[in-house]
């Protein structure tokens, strides 16, 4: 019975980790890759360690695997958040089918300030569906200067 439970847990964990690397290979974008790997590997390591704890069935093994799972669950979101933040601030390209970039035009990458309204004084007229706010003025040098109120 214990062996069956351990086998199921190990197979589940291995499958999740395989899905994570499938995600990192196939996803088109840094942020999607990060999203695929961070969650799947957390659960995969948790299942694998639970399988090891169930199978070996000693108090030392159980406490060590519990410590590993706790540590991974604490650190993986923090690390993923920091990598995503660094990716966004270093200008990593988004996937071309991305629908919403809520920080676009509102985040000053140089001084790390967030504005609640788009920084440019005038929005471009919304002709085709949703209006896209322009890039923050100080972010890219080659962007044309924002048009003043006509």
């Amino acid at each position, binding site marked *: 019975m214990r062996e069956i439970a351990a086998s199921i847990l190990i197979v589940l964990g291995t499958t999740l*980790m395989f899905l994570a690397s499938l995600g990192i290979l196939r996803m088109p974008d840094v942020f999607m890759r990060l999203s695929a790997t961070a969650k799947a590997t957390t659960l*995969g390591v948790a299942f694998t360690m639970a399988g*090891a704890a169930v199978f070996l069935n000693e108090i030392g*093994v159980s406490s060590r695997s519990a410590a590993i799972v706790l*540590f991974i669950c604490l650190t993986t979101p923090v*690390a993923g958040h920091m990598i995503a933040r660094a990716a966004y*601030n270093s200008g990593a390209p988004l996937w071309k089918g991305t629908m919403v970039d809520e920080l676009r035009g509102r985040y000053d990458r140089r001084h790390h300030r967030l504005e609640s309204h788009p920084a440019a004084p005038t929005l471009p007229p919304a002709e085709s569906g949703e209006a896209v706010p322009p890039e923050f003025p100080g972010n890219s040098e080659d962007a044309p200067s924002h048009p003043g109120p006509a």
Partner: protein
Amino acid sequence: MNPENLALNVAMPVLGVSLVMAFARLVRGPNLVDRVVAVDLIGTLSIGIAGVYAVATHQAVFLDVAVILAMLLFLGTIAFAYFIERRTER
């Protein structure tokens, strides 16, 4: 099939294929951040490999390896993210 054989014959090859796929992203990744994500995934996969190997060989010592790997991986990822962000500020 008992769990040792399962870990050695099923879980280990799957994790090896996963390592190869993560390594392909590490080689191909168009950006530096992609490569950091791939290194992070490779480290996490080696934590899983240590756990599976502990099951396969009945040695609880490999879980210590997993603990150390988890700590070093976190520090490395944080350092990479910090320096990428500082590099783009200049």
